[in-house]
């Protein structure tokens, strides 16, 4: 069997849409390549954290001074004229350590549809499992489409609509509320090390239409070395309309742009079919080659009532536990190294999520004090 090259695994982390579908499909069913992908990601995360230590934005005053300095150097042919003195830079006073486990932050946000937020960091987690783990269960598909995972979905049909939600920076919470009609999340308390004014971003309601194509699906599956099972009558050409958002994301960062806390509030995604019962679609996609039957069964169980949003959790890297936020049941996800935690719950028809390089108690405290 040809395994996925490590250079391709590396690109999957950054530009999954540029990687062949056959590699995606192979990875979904190959434990060896999945293990390699974990190692590749681990190395990337460590290096990204180390590089982030040197990051520090240039402010406009520093840039203007540098421009004057360059002009002086040009005028003096760069030699005779002494440049103006460089302004003294601020010194760091430390702060929270960089988020090596930022994937979890993103993982929670992808579920809530605010995916593009945190970074490109976490997208590949779902990209690698997009075909295997999220086979058109209603909420999964909506969440994945919100997350820009159409490269995978487009292998099974025609997709129209935005390929990823456009997160737009807004000036403040009030502007975010006007744009979305939602109440912007405002924590009562911030954990130690999280400070300053958050960056507010919003995205509008997204609508994506997916039309299943048996011919495309057969070609995609064949590229992975398998055969497409015959689709049930009426599936070929049937359409699903996926909607999600609007949403608001508030992010606190330390210098260098490393997120220390992310809070999201997003209207719950919905899926509407054009006649076919969703369970029929779901059963069919669950049976596609490359999708582990046990995983498909678990997905069916979780989404059986059509109202439960499944939360992807990576075996061996993250653990979940139950909690409550107000009257709502909540799910807490922690990375096994306890470096990162997040909590997600649904209140008043919106998905709410709090995550960061924090402890379980810290994210719950933020969640419980959220307005």
């Amino acid at each position: 069997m040809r395994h996925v090259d490590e250079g391709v695994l590396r690109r999957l982390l950054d530009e999954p849409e540029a990687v062949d579908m056959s590699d995606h499909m192979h990875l979904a069913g190959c434990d060896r390549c999945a293990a390699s992908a974990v190692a590749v990601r681990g190395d990337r995360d460590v290096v990204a954290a180390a590089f982030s230590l040197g990051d520090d934005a240039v402010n406009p005053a520093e840039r203007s001074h540098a421009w004057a300095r360059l002009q002086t150097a040009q005028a003096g042919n760069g030699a005779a004229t002494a440049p103006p003195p460089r302004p003294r830079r601020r010194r760091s006073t430390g702060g929270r350590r960089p988020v090596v486990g930022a994937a979890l932050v993103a993982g929670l946000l992808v579920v809530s549809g605010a995916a593009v937020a945190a970074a490109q960091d976490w997208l590949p987690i779902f990209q690698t499992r997009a075909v295997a783990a999220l086979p058109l269960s209603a909420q999964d598909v909506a969440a994945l489409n919100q997350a820009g995972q159409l490269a995978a979905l487009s292998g099974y049909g025609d997709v129209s609509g935005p390929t990823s939600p456009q997160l737009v920076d807004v000036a403040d919470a009030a502007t975010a509320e006007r744009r979305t009609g939602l109440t912007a999340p405002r924590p009562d308390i911030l954990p130690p090390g999280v400070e300053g004014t958050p960056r507010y971003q919003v995205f509008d309601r997204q609508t994506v239409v997916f039309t299943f194509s048996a011919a495309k699906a057969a070609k995609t599956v064949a590229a992975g070395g398998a055969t497409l099972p015959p689709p049930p009558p009426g599936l070929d050409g049937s359409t699903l309309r996926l909607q999600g958002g609007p949403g608001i994301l508030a992010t606190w960062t330390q210098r260098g742009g490393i997120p220390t806390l992310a809070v999201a509030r997003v209207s719950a995604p919905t899926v509407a079919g054009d006649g076919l019962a969703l369970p029929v679609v779901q059963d069919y996609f669950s049976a596609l080659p490359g999708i582990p039957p046990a995983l498909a069964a678990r997905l069916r169980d979780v989404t059986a009532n059509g109202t439960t949003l499944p939360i992807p959790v990576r075996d061996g890297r993250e653990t979940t536990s139950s909690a409550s936020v107000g009257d709502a049941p909540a799910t807490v996800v922690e990375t096994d190294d306890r470096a990162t935690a997040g909590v997600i719950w649904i209140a008043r028809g919106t998905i709410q999520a709090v995550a960061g390089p924090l402890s379980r108690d810290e994210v719950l405290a933020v969640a419980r004090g959220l307005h």
Partner: protein
Amino acid sequence: MPSGRAADLERVFHAEYARVVAIARRVLGDASTAEDIAQEVFLAFARSGVPAAAARGWLAAASVHTALNVVRTERRRVEREARRHRDPALTPAVADRDPVEEVLRGQDRERVRAALATLPRAQAVALVLRHSGASYIEIADALGVSATGVGTLLRRAEAAVRKELTGDAARR
């Protein structure tokens, strides 16, 4: 009113200065030296005749190469000094380090610099550019390789840097 070329330079400078500094900082871990390198790079750009449309990629590549040259030259100097004094732990003096920053950041920075100094040049360039936000296509253009090859360069570079980071950590 500035000439067309001068206007281009000013526009390019304001658009790209922060990025050029950030790239050099990732290599050097030092803001002041990174700003000096940015000056050097923009002066070279002003003299080069490179069209403004090609400035972004040219400046990024120039910044990373110039910063790597500094790191490698410095490393060779430190090694010479260390041999002379028979002190393998000798490192360049930095006068104004903040103690807290030193604890949190300094050691990792030194290890990253040490790793960058020993990586094959293409790997080091790919690594720095990618972690500065360049796309695979942009990196491929800067290095004259295929976009597919960029993934391989990055994978090898990150494995080597991680080894340097965790290996040193284990020895402490």
